[in-house]
């Protein structure tokens, strides 16, 4: 059992490395595409492909290694200069990269592999490779292998058993490891598994040479095996499996139809007489051949079978859950923990023998403790931080593909790729970003002729920029396209009844309407965008991460989408506020300002709503006490007193009335959902210094739930907010 786990772990490493390799290939190919036919670039691509092939072969992912082999052949021609890369070649190679990525993802999740797609790509590449003799053989071999794979897979189905047996040969393999084979790290089990991936395998252990227990050296291999392998594979393929142990064993491979020849094929050394006798005396019936018991542990075999039986239940795709951490970060942590231990022992002294003279020392110790704790916290957070480049890297490809499809010329600029983000945030921001980029390409940047007519350069510029601003990470998607057609949006919104016919909205307000579900300005629905389901999802995802998104746009000049995200999900810079007897926390991120309430500036609007007159604007006022209904007396009291925390939510400002401002501090966000349930208007809870629990206000949600419930009838702005 533990064996399987190990294998899974190793496979995971293989996948991780291979995905990296694929990224390298993709980046390289895109560079080639831009006419950069540097030999170094080609070598990079080739090397990446080669490592994937090698790894896949070792771990028994034959689909991948065989496919990569074909790709490698093509790359080799490019590398050696016998072939000039064309656009089509690159397109084909990019497609191959995609196919490999899909296949690996499928294998990783133990899902079906799309063998047909692979086969068609393989044929395409073979066609490109031309009819050169040396390639031909490779192709044939590959196709043969593919065919053998197919028939192998079908073997799972009972009705095919007969046909399957006809096409296979029964090989007998005598495998006698030398005593010291195990010491070189070779594991016969691995070999058997690999053999099993070639066909049905029956293993018989020969224990004759096993010494009596007292004489048994645990590190020696006393066993030898007789293997019956029913397969279509050639002798060479079987030999390949034993490649690594050739020097350390006696091996005989016998083909039943041709026993004499096989006996000649004794490898390395002669086989012992006894074993020979055993073979001779044991005729084997092929239909008795059974797969070995450890079938279950053999990933490649199981997966191949799954490939054909579509009905097999798919395991749920798992998200990768490991991170690579640089050794420096770990060392820094270790140092800090060491310091903490020292400080702790220093403080412990005071517990045992305390006198008032040591008060200063105690104070120093506590300061030290505080410092180390904070550093430790920062360092631990740092471990979860990854550069955003891993996310940005997919965009050159995306932009290349989409702009090609749309017939637009786009230059992609990336900056701030080294900005670090929390791993969770990074994972979740990927899809929204892709969406925004697609939108910019589809709606924003115009086709070359339109651009020229508008007096702009033919090539549009899409700029992705990430940087840190205070406690936030800002990601900006900027294009110099057409900008948002505010009239069109407004008309659409009026159409759908989101905005009243008489209502006048500011441009920014209108722009933010694009985040409303069901609103798309693209008249034609394409596979890229236009269904109007995108932007609201984008906004929701970003909101879920505790961030916000804004759009600024100018007709004919371009649009800028700004995403603001908290540095990390686990810690929040919060303003503690008191309201009645309770303490709440408002994220500093959302607070615009805080003002003392001047009674003259508070106005009641008919219907129970209240607004505050601030610098010429009337902003709605929400009393925390009223909404949370926990202390009615207090809410009466602070009608004209207290503090107004002005927060911004979805581009609109809202004042939250509280009794008192307390500290500002970093708080650790704890989930309410774990043991209770998600609450509207609350994003979680935290534990304060005194051990009590304080609730964290989810400002956008809070405002939303207030607006939709309280001002429902009185404000025409409800949908816009």
């Amino acid at each position, binding site marked *: 059992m533990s064996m399987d786990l190990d294998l899974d772990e190793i496979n995971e490493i293989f996948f991780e490395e291979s995905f990296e390799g694929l990224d390298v290939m993709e980046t390289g190919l895109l560079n080639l595409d831009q006419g950069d036919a540097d030999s170094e670039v080609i070598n990079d691509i080739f090397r990446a492909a080669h490592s994937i092939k090698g790894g896949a072969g070792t771990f028994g992912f034959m689909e991948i290694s065989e496919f990569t082999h074909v790709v490698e052949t093509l790359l080799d021609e490019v590398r050696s200069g016998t072939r000039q890369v064309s656009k089509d070649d690159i397109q084909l190679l990019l497609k191959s990269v995609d196919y490999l990525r899909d296949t690996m993802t499928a294998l990783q999740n133990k899902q079906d592999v799309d063998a047909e797609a692979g086969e068609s790509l393989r044929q395409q590449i073979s066609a490109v490779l031309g009819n050169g003799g040396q390639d031909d053989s490779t192709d044939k071999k590959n196709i043969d292998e593919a065919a053998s794979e197919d028939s192998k897979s079908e073997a799972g189905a009972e009705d095919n058993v007969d046909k399957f047996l006809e096409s296979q040969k029964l090989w007998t393999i005598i495998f006698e490891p030398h005593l010291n084979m195990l010491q070189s790290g070779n594991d016969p089990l691995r070999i058997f598994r690999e053999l099993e991936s070639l066909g049905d395998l029956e293993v018989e252990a020969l224990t004759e040479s096993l010494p009596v227990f007292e004489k048994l050296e645990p590190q020696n291999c006393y066993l030898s095996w007789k293997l019956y392998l029913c397969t279509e594979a050639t002798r060479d393929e079987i030999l390949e499996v034993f490649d690594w142990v050739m020097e350390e064993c006696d091996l005989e491979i016998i083909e039943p139809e041709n026993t004499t020849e096989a006996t000649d094929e004794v490898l390395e050394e002669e086989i012992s007489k006894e074993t020979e006798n055993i073979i001779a005396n044991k005729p084997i019936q092929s239909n008795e051949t059974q797969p070995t018991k450890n079938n279950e542990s053999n990933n490649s075999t199981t997966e191949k079978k799954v490939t054909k039986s579509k009905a097999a239940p798919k395991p749920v795709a798992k998200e990768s859950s490991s991170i690579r951490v640089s050794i420096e970060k770990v060392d820094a942590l270790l140092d800090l923990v060491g310091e903490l231990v020292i400080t702790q022992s220093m403080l412990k002294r005071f517990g045992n023998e305390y006198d008032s003279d040591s008060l200063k020392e105690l104070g120093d110790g506590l300061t030290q403790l505080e410092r180390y704790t904070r550093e430790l916290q920062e360092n631990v957070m740092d471990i979860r931080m990854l550069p955003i480049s891993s996310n940005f890297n997919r965009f050159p490809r995306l932009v290349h593909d989409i702009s090609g499809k749309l017939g637009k010329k786009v230059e992609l600029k990336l900056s701030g790729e080294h900005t670090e983000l929390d791993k969770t945030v990074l994972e979740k921001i990927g899809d929204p970003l892709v969406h925004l980029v697609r939108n910019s390409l589809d709606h924003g940047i115009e086709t070359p002729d339109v651009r020229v007519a508008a007096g702009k350069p033919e090539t549009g510029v899409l700029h992705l920029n990430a940087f840190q601003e205070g406690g936030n990470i800002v990601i900006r998607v900027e294009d110099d396209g057409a900008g948002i057609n505010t009239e069109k949006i407004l008309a659409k919104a009026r159409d759908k009844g989101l905005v009243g016919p008489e209502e006048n909205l500011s441009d920014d307000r209108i722009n933010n309407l694009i985040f409303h579900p069901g609103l798309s300005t693209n008249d034609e629905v394409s596979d890229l965008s236009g269904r109007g389901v995108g932007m609201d999802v984008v906004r929701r995802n970003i909101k879920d991460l505790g961030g916000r998104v804004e759009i600024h746009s100018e007709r004919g000049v371009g649009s800028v989408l700004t995403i603001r995200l908290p540095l990390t999900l686990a810690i929040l810079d919060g303003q503690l506020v008191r309201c009645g007897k309770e303490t709440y926390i408002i994220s500093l991120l959302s607070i615009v300002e805080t003002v003392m309430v001047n009674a003259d500036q508070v106005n009641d609007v008919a219907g129970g709503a209240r607004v505050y007159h601030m610098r010429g604007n009337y902003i709605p006022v929400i009393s925390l006490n009223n909404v949370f*209904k926990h202390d009615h007396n207090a809410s009466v009291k602070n009608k004209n007193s207290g503090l107004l925390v002005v927060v911004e939510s979805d581009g609109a400002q809202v004042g939250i009335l509280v009794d008192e401002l307390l500290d500002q501090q970093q708080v650790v966000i*704890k989930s309410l959902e774990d*043991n209770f349930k998600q609450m509207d208007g609350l994003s979680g809870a935290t534990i304060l210094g005194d051990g*009590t629990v304080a609730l964290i206000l989810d400002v956008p949600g809070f405002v939303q739930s207030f607006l939709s419930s309280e001002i429902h009838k009185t404000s025409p702005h409800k949908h816009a907010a």
Partner: protein
Amino acid sequence: MNTSEAQLIEEEHFNTDSEQFLTFMLAGEEYGVEILSVQGVQGWSKTTPIPNTPDYILGVINLRGAIVPIIDLRKRFELEAIPYGSTTVVVVVKVTNEESDRTVGIVVDGVSEVYRLDNKDIQAAPEFGDAVKTEYIKGLATADEKMIILLEINKLISFDVIEEAFSNDEVNT
């Protein structure tokens, strides 16, 4: 640990037809929950109220770094409320459903005993018709000549119950 308790533990090894229950007092009646679902018993501490929740949800507390909701069982059963006294305790239980485990604290008047009850000695809850909900009562048993109402904790604090409470709530629509 007294002898009867030690005996109980010993019995556990060869008696699989019985279960242990922790009992607690609530308005003069003794209720029992399966001891395996009990995470701990602790004194009453101040809770942080959660706005717009039914009144039997007193709020949340910090239980070793986790945020745990506290339910007042008297209010839940619509019994007369009494001020919390020195014996008032919070029984922390683990509620299991298909998706997840949740930890919830329930406030009771006081803990009483640990009983081992044979499954055959547990009677099904009598039918009261529609008037009284009995789905969260596992059964009735007698120990030391007293009646013990055994609660099915997973049903009592199932999340339908909490959802149900929310659906009546206007602000959270």
